[in-house]
């Protein structure tokens, strides 16, 4: 067979180096080509990761046993010899950008698997890569931490609550990076794509959990997902708590139950002594507006009882109030030295409102902590008592720094409401108004451990009505206007773009089949009961929509198998499109 010259660009020789020319025959297999190439360069190094990339055809020549003829390569082919793994800048949900070496030759799905293995994230099928948003203002200081999510750059048009920009940028999971124009050192985002978290176990999923949390957090702060004011305050409180606990986490690690018991026993002793020694509180009844009367109070189990004086505290109390199941709210103004505990105590007749006025911060913190525990049915002997006191103290400290914000030196304890709630609420409320509301919500989560707080945040996020919806603009067959297709983990919804109302819901459970016509970029889906829909995609590529639907169906198959091995083949079948054929 006749020999002919094949020129190959060897990346390792540098960009400007001329291509290496080798003499080959058409029946030479790719492995032989590579061998010749390596010999010619005379560089001694590990070439095992290298492979040939055919530039015109945008494909890797990975089958080393195939001949040049079989691949259809002739003398005019532009081949590049380069490593399959190359560095990539990877933006994580928490704003950190990593530089790591990823595979450019395998389908993105496998590349993500590799990345997740490196980052120790289980269930990589839930994540994918997407192109970052165009960075409009390059002049911005690069050192500003989350360069991706800069709140100031987000247009706050109140009209459109649906965001489409994200979903048109997902990479095709069945093709490799290089095929999709991603070059070495390019920047991509790693995100959770399918909102169907499977088998989350904080024990093994530390990274996964935090990254998912960060993604959820930003989705809320950027109002990618809508929530009510109450929910926003709770999200804010949880964020505050999580960031606080995350800083002090190492100290909390000692988790010896025996020690815990001993500690709590000792603590309860302290409390008893202090409680009986120095705590005379006032009891203002609602009816006497300003007339606070002083009584001697005693805290026992989950009840408080009060006496005319300390001397009479051995006898029968004037009244004993069981706090189990009651609502406890702070009414505090540090500047005015007002320390009120508002108790809403359920009784057969309704709720009784009782205010306890404490003399000082110290006393307030203790009694407030006691009331909170008692409302949950816990006694002062509970191990969480001290930490409860601590969290109330820090709450007071925050108020202090906040009230004197003129000299606010952003101490660690101060609460930066800007990072906790979406910009809408900064406009609506002053920080002075926002802080107490967040802190009010904070009281209910202050006891959560870091993991529990993260899980709680995700739970509330997942319970939002619009959770898990990815939107694309489509045009339904026979319709003249653009409409929105929402893709959820279990259903498709059709939304009227002008009103924002859900017009129709289709569930995957009833789905019989779907087809994609790649030429006219149209999807046709058939549901049980002879329901057929067809639409063409406007904002995102057809492949993206196809992959979303197939991907969610794949996610729903996981629960039945409960196996650790990922059924890659099935995923590819469901999402690959014509690549899969």
């Amino acid at each position, binding site marked *: 067979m006749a020999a002919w010259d094949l020129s190959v660009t060897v990346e390792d020789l540098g960009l400007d180096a001329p291509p290496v020319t080798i003499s080959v025959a058409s029946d030479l297999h790719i492995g032989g080509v590579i061998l010749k190439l390596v010999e010619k360069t005379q560089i001694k190094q590990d070439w095992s990761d290298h492979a040939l990339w055919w530039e015109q055809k945008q494909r890797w020549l990975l089958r080393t046993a195939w001949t040049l003829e079989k691949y259809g390569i002739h003398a005019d082919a532009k081949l590049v010899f380069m490593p399959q793994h190359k560095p990539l800048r990877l933006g994580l949900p928490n704003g950190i950008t990593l530089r790591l070496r990823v595979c450019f030759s395998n389908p993105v799905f496998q590349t993500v698997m590799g990345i997740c293995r490196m980052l120790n994230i289980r269930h990589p099928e839930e994540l994918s890569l997407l192109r970052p948003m165009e960075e409009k203002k390059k002049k911005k200081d690069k050192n500003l931490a989350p360069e991706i999510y800069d709140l100031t750059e987000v247009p706050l048009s109140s009209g459109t*609550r649906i965001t489409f920009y994200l979903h048109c940028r997902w990479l095709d999971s069945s093709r490799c990076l290089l095929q999709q124009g991603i070059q070495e050192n390019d920047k991509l985002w790693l995100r959770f794509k399918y909102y*169907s*978290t*499977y*088998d*989350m176990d904080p024990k093994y999923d530390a990274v996964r959990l935090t990254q998912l949390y960060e993604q959820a957090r930003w989705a809320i702060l950027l109002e990618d997902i*809508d*929530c*009510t*004011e*109450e*929910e*926003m305050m*709770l999200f804010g409180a949880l964020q505050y708590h999580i960031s606080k606990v995350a800083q002090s986490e190492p100290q909390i690690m000692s988790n010896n139950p025996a020690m815990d018991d001993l500690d709590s026993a000792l603590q309860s002793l302290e409390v008893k002594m202090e409680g009986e020694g120095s705590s005379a509180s006032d009891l203002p009844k609602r009816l006497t507006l300003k007339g606070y009367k002083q009584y001697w109070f005693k805290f*026992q189990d989950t009840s408080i009882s009060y006496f005319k004086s300390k001397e009479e505290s051995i006898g*029968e109390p004037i009244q004993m109030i069981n706090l189990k*199941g009651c*609502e406890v709210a702070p009414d505090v103004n540090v500047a005015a030295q007002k320390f009120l505990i508002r108790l809403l105590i*359920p*009784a*057969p*007749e*309704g*709720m009784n409102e009782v205010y306890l006025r404490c003399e000082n911060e110290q006393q307030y913190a203790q009694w407030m902590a006691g009331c909170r525990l008692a409302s949950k049915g816990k006694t002062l002997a509970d191990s969480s008592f001290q930490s409860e006191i601590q969290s109330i103290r820090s709450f007071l400290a925050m108020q202090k720094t906040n009230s004197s914000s003129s000299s606010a030196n952003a101490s660690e304890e101060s609460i930066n409401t800007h990072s906790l709630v979406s910009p*809408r609420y900064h406009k609506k409320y002053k920080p002075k108004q926002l802080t107490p509301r967040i802190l009010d919500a904070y009281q209910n989560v202050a006891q959560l451990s870091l993991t529990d707080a993260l899980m709680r945040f*995700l*739970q*509330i996020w*997942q*319970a*939002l*009505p*619009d*959770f898990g919806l990815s939107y694309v603009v489509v045009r339904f067959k026979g319709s003249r206007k653009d409409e929105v297709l929402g893709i959820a983990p*279990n259903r498709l919804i059709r939304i009227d773009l002008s009103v*924002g109302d859900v017009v129709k*819901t289709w*569930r995957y*459970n*009833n789905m019989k089949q779907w087809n994609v016509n790649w030429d006219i970029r149209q999807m046709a889906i058939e549901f049980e009961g002879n329901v057929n829909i067809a639409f063409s995609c406007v904002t995102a590529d057809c492949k993206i929509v196809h992959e979303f639907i197939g991907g969610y169906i794949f996610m*729903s198959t996981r*629960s039945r198998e409960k196996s650790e091995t990922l059924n890659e083949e099935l995923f590819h079948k469901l999402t690959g499109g014509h690549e899969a054929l």
Partner: protein
Amino acid sequence: MDQLSDEEVEIREEEEEEEEDSDKEDQDLDKMFGAWLGELDKLTQSLDDGRSERPPQEKPPLRQETNIANFSYRFSMYNINEALNQRENVDLDALMADLCSIEQELSTINAKPNSSGSMARLGITDTKVRTIIPLVAGSGTIRAPAGQHGRPALASNFSLDDITAQLEKRVRGGQLEADPRFSELWSLSSVSSVCSCDSHRFTGTLSFFFKHSYLDRETSLILRNIAGKPSHLLTKEEQAAKLKAENIRVALEKIKEAQVKKLVIRVHLSDESSKTMMVDERQTVRQVLDSLLEKSHCGYSADWSLVETISELQMERIFEDHENLVENLLNWTRDSQNRLMFTERIEKYALFKNPQNYLLGRKETCEMAERNKEALLEECFGGSSVSVPEMEGVLWLKEDGKKSWKKRYFLLRASGIYYVPKGKAKASRDLACFLQLDHVNVYLGQDYKSKYKAPTDYCMVLKHPQIQKKSQYIKYLCCDDVRTLQQWINSIRIAKYGKQLYINFQEAMRRSEAAYDWSSLSSSSIKSGSSSSSLPESQSNHSSQSDSGVSEMTSSGHTRSQSVVSSIFSDAWRRGTQGEVRSCSHSVFLPSSVCLCSAFAHVSPLLSYQ
């Protein structure tokens, strides 16, 4: 101590006119128990009195703790006593069965006792007194001498010896087998009272035995004969009997130590009859339902519910299976007219039987293939988070303190119920929070059209469970139709309980399947074995089922055995006391003849045992 007793009893059964058809035996039994319990209660009081009469310097430092110890005991005592004194038609039959089962459980706790060892372990010296009173039931009363009250002996270690002797004498001498009808059945029922008394605390536990449940005839006879005999003179058999009794006592000690609060409650059935039973503070609604089902032999269905009706507010709520019953009942006031109903309610689990009507946010009911239903449920409840069904629409809201109703657009979210303020769109951020669900339960309002001039009778109420009277903190909502109402109520339940609701349903379904398997099994096993020895020696403790460590099989096995015990007793009792069987509550509820057969299958062979 006296003012404490007021607080102790936070629950009372509704006073009720005596049923006309309640037979004489019932009353006789009532009397007997009433008197008997009254006696014990007095003893308790006298003990308490005695202690509180002590000079203050002798007061134990752990006074509070002592009170708690007493609390649990007196709580149940008071209830039984009260119920009986009010001449209510207490379902002693059922109550007995409960007590029997408690006994039986406890008897298994200490399987290999060492007589002297356990004595020593429990500190049985002359400071603690153990008494077993063989009591032959009669219609007469037993009275302890008045002199027992406030005995000076209380100052030191109190002894019950004398009282026991008195009781015993009276029983034997006066009323022994006075009623021939009873002799057949009750020829030897022993009632044991174990009291331990030391300077710091007094606790007691009351228990009843029947030959069928624990002590057989021989043992009881022996025990009666050896009363007072010095231990070294006892024969082998006598010692064995004593050992047996000892086991019971040890078990009772255990129960006392556990200090489990028990309530005697009255459960109303839909035919206006009622049952009295004892519930343990740890029992879930599911467990109580199970034992009610076992006792009433009604065909098992997941729809059986315990329903709380608050007549003063004209509302009701089906308790969820995972809820703690006692905790809920303690919300009732002392003079409460509330009722606890045991009844079948299809709406309890309709949500899971036809999920398509609740979870899909559809306006109209529709059919769905079973496999799709399962898939839908799995999808909604199987994952890590449960999404709340999308419920929104116009509802009527009752204005505070007025009888007028206002229309408002309400939305349900996991974080609570919201409404759209006037002039706003229904974008999430503009929603106003109506209420959050953490502290409230959802109730069904009854007949509010006439009570509150509601637009329709399809009303739901949201309130804190502790609120029992009219209050501004109760929120009333009215729907246009019953379907909307049911959708709202169920969606609120999902928002409130999430996955737990589905777990409850699955558990209920599992039990109903198991119940059918058992009904065929039980008839054969009982036939072959003798009555008392055939009882499975289950190691599982009925009350400890709430600890969730007990596997399903053992626990259900146990409740079954309890059912057998109670049915043996109830049938024997009925047959012995009268010719015709009074319309017993359970047969009324059998939904089909098939169930009737299976329910009676394991009872009938035992009737020949008489």
